[in-house]
């Protein structure tokens, strides 16, 4: 049944509903395509993750800030699109009989929550960066670098965790079983982490390095992959001498 036209109207304040994790309303949203709502969520992802990316890249150079502001939302959107099909197939196979539309909406909303949190933290990160010693080719303050890196890890972890907590609540409501919801969330997370790590590797750098030029892609962006690099590092820890 098609929803009445009035239901298609949305308000930006709906993001607060999303952040509060009001499962009843959110599960209702996931049941139908609503282009204005889809646009709102995409806008939050682009703006929230974009602002956070800008704060991350600003330390190296304003141009780096622009690049990371584009790359950060791009990783989220490409991961979501790349895994959309397999995620939609895995949900019914793991016991959650929801259509493609609903699985896509659920994941989109969890990313919207994470992006909204990232966006809210971006002024704080920008302030932290502004207070840090300049990143120059002559010298880089290691304590400052480590502090900024750890702060980013903490904020991104928090945003990701909150997005997934809300996603789990939604899945429990949609599936009616905590076990099924955990299974589906785990499968989706595994896929998203697997692809997301590789996309982050391709789209590096983010914070940037004072000794390397400001670039959108590193020269060897498409040579090698994240996991190959990890394996290679492990092999070089144990030289064959």
């Amino acid at each position, binding site marked *: 049944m098609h929803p009445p036209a009035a239901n298609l109207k949305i308000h930006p304040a709906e993001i607060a509903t999303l952040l509060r994790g009001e499962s009843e309303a959110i599960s209702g949203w996931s049941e139908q395509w609503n282009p204005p709502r889809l646009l709102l969520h995409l806008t939050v992802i682009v703006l929230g993750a974009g602002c956070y990316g800008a704060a991350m890249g600003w330390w190296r150079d304003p141009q780096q800030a622009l690049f990371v502001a584009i790359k950060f939302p791009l990783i989220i959107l490409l991961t979501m*699109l*790349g*895994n959309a*099909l*397999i995620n*939609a*197939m*895995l949900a*019914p*196979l793991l*016991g*959650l*009989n929801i259509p493609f539309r609903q699985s896509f909406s659920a994941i989109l909303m969890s990313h919207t929550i994470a992006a909204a949190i990232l966006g809210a933290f971006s002024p704080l990160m920008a302030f932290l960066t502004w207070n840090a010693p300049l990143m120059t080719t002559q010298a880089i303050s290691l304590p400052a670098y480590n502090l900024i890196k750890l702060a980013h890890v903490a904020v991104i972890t928090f945003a990701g965790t909150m997005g997934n907590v809300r996603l789990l609540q939604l899945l429990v*409501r*949609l*599936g*009616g*079983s905590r076990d*099924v919801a955990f299974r589906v969330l785990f499968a989706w997370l595994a*896929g998203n982490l*697997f*692809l997301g790590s*590789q*996309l982050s*590797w*391709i789209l590096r750098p983010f914070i940037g390095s004072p000794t390397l030029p400001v670039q959108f892609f590193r020269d060897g*962006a*498409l*040579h*090698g*992959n994240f*996991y*190959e690099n990890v*394996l*290679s590092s492990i*092999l*070089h820890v144990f*030289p*064959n001498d």
Partner: protein
Amino acid sequence: MNENNPVPPQIPPSESAQKFAAKIYEPVPPPPLSGPRPLGDDPAERVPIPHAFAAIEALLRQPRRLLFQLRQPGAGELIAAMLFTAFVSSLIYGVVAGTFSGGTQLWIAPVKIAAGLMISAGICLPSLYIFTCLSGSQARLSEVAGLLAGMLMLMTILLIGFAPVAWIFSQSTESVLWMGLLHLIFWLVATLFGVRFMKAGYSHANAKSHAGLNVWIIIFLLVALQMTTALRPILGKSETFFPTEKKFFVGHWFDCLKSSVSESRSNGRD
């Protein structure tokens, strides 16, 4: 007194009543893949499956419907549609696998993957039927073939789901070993779900034991893995369509691993 008050006083529900109510109104989870219920007891399972797309939908969301339809007279068309879907899906996945090397591999890889999968299934079908009979099942050959076709279709449909991820990785690495490992992982995940479907179907075939099916699953895995070596190279390039040297897959993998590790170490020393 009471006659003047038609509305009875509100009595708060007891805790057990609340739990009971919560249980009744709890959303009903989707039907399990297998269960003691006989196939077709739900009217939705009796709805015919008219075409391949409906078969895909049924395989993912209503596997019991597909299992019921496979037992009906005239299931041959459905089985043919499922095999055709599996063949086309494996061709699509093969094209994605072929993008790693490009050039002639864009047609060689899909042909080898699709043919390899179908030949593996063909080789293993007789033994599956024998194991089914030995386990005391009354299933006909067409039912067993239907289960195998369902397994292949589910596997290849899932592989298409993995295809965008495989494509991104194939564009960002030059290591055949790494890409081979990635495709193997995707294939194993897809096979896991395919085997689950097969077991669900088997549980309705009145088999006394699943031991025969478990042995057959191991045989199928070994045949499919050996097929990847017999038809090599699927990812890399070669001057000949078929390999010039005979090898077992374990030996081939070990050789690949050895050369890749030594290459990685020598690159690190440059």
